[in-house]
């Protein structure tokens, strides 16, 4: 059978990475207008949560709220109505470490909050509680290919369900000793609000097909280091084209030997 293309319009972008606290900052760096500064990721206090919840929110919860809300605001979309796809190479690393550490002792009476925060979909669950969104919510993992997996499933929903879908791809760090086994250096991620139809807010169209081409690298060594170190930032070659408002093709890492070719149509 002939395949229906995996295609959508991008209406909003959210971004957060070390030295790049939001999409406007990242866009300026990706355009070459300003230099990347070396700095840890800055997580904004999630204003959508009540004060008590705001203080208790974990790093991945703050990260995904920041990413998703920025993309939705960029697009002028109502978060309560959006279907979501979360994709991450791991869950809350600090929470996982605390549980494993306690379960290795004689006192195994772990905290119930730690337990329900240990699920891979914890950030997605808090997103639902914070936004009131009752639409379908997907939560994926494909290790270093997690961004690609999230993009494939999100585009599938956009094309078939004909509804805007918010993709939030993100990662966070483990503390030692797990850090030595999985050295993701910091929290980072990207959110893309994908829609089935072009609108006045559309930034570009994207069409994804499988490829065996190697992924595009970034000329800036600092940005390239981020792309390689944090799985969600495998998106960066796409974001560079979007920042520069360039049409054309980019190649992103997914699961070798399967890579993703993305055709960008400008608006």
């Amino acid at each position, binding site marked *: 059978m002939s*395949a229906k293309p995996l295609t959508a319009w991008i209406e909003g972008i959210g971004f957060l990475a070390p030295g790049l606290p939001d999409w406007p900052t990242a866009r300026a760096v990706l355009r070459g207008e300003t230099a990347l500064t070396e700095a840890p990721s800055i997580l904004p206090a999630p204003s959508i949560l009540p004060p008590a919840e705001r203080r208790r929110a974990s790093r991945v919860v703050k990260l995904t709220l920041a990413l998703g809300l920025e993309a939705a605001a960029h697009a002028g979309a109502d978060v309560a109505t959006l279907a979501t796809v979360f994709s991450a190479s791991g869950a809350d690393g600090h929470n996982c470490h605390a549980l494993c550490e306690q379960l290795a002792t004689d006192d195994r009476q772990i905290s119930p909050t730690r337990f329900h925060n240990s699920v891979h979909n914890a950030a*997605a669950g808090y997103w639902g*509680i914070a936004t009131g969104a009752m639409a379908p919510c997907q939560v994926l*993992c494909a*290790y270093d290919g997690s961004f690609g997996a999230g993009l494939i499933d999100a585009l599938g*929903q956009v094309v078939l369900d004909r509804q805007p879908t918010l993709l939030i791809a993100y990662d966070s760090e483990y503390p*030692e*000793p797990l850090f030595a086994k999985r050295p993701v250096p910091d929290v980072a991620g990207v959110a893309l609000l994908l829609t089935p139809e072009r609108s006045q807010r559309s930034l570009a169209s994207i069409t994804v097909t*499988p490829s065996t081409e190697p992924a595009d690298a970034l000329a800036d060594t600092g940005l390239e280091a981020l792309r390689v170190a944090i799985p969600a930032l495998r998106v960066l070659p796409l974001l560079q084209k979007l920042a520069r408002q360039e049409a054309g093709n980019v190649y992103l890492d997914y699961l070798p030997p399967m890579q993703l070719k993305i055709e960008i149509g400008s608006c």
Partner: protein
Amino acid sequence: MLPVSDLTVNPLLLSAYTVTTSLGRGLEATREALRNGRSGLVPCAFETVQLATWIGEVAAVDDEKLPAALADYDCRNNRLTQMGLETDGFADRVREAIARYGKTRVGIFLGTSTAGILQTELAYRRRDPETGALPDDFHYRTTHNSFSLAEFTREYFGLEGMAMAISTACSSSAKVFAAAARQLELGTIDAAIVGGVDTLCLTTLYGFASLQLTSAQPCRPYDAARNGISVGEGAAFALLERCDQPAAGSVLLLGTGESSDAYHMSSPHPEGLGAKMAMEAALRSAGLTTNDIDYINLHGTSTPANDAAEGKAVSTLFGNTVPCSSTKGATGHTLGAAGAVEAIICALALTDGFLPGSPGTEHLDPAIPVDYLLQSRTGQPHRALTNSFGFGGSNCSLILGVAK
């Protein structure tokens, strides 16, 4: 208006399927147990766990030897993954599909809640006393990571196409059917290995105990005196393909529905609103109405809150006329594997002509007005709906049918 799909999807063929739980390895052991009302639950004696609870443990998982080339994947979860794949001839059917379609055209969509985290729990007991480092023989990527079972399966079959793990707690391996159905409908793949694998570990046993959600007795779904779950483990797989003219008697995926509670991390919406939305979405995607459903395999975890909320949703939609049951009194709650395990149980009910009962349940909760089956009985369901709900308010309903 809520943005849920109103598009009817084309039915997909389950061209092969298999299930392994505490009831036994494979379809024959499972159907025998379900027809006879046998439970696989036993008092917990897993690893060093000291909890007054019952579990559904799969026999001989740790006897399973992985291929030498995949030794880094060795952990209880991947042992059970391989055991499941090599049951009921499933792996051979996958290899036939790869020969038919090519190694880039068979996708992998597997659900899990904890993957091989047991490996990490054990490694934390063997940290270097000086540095705190984890042992060299601990491999995070191929055991602990949520993708490990999907990557193992991809390597096991030498596949080179799309793969993803879905991890939405206890709805994980129901949602894999929806994700795979999308890609099959789009034509980006020609077949999909879908399924779920979750194995016993300390995180879930002590975790559910910490929430006071484990029972000291075998779980009793929908019983008036139900007081918690029995944690289980399992592996279930199906091979999904498009099919214009399915042979009579073959099992079809007719519809899928997903929703979010947006309510609480570990408690369901008290009115079952998200559950109701998922069932409605599944009916819509199948192009069916409530009258078309002949059996409902309930999520039925046996916690007071889950069964009350799900019961409200089911009775609001279906009244008390559709026979329904939870099979977790037989298998235990296999968590991230439950969606796929119960989809295959529905396939057995549809092909064999019986309705599974609910071992352990004795006195039905009079506050839940549904047609709940205590005992298995013969019958010929044509279409079955199965529910799976997870922490974080993640809901998924599937509808399966049998081709005429």
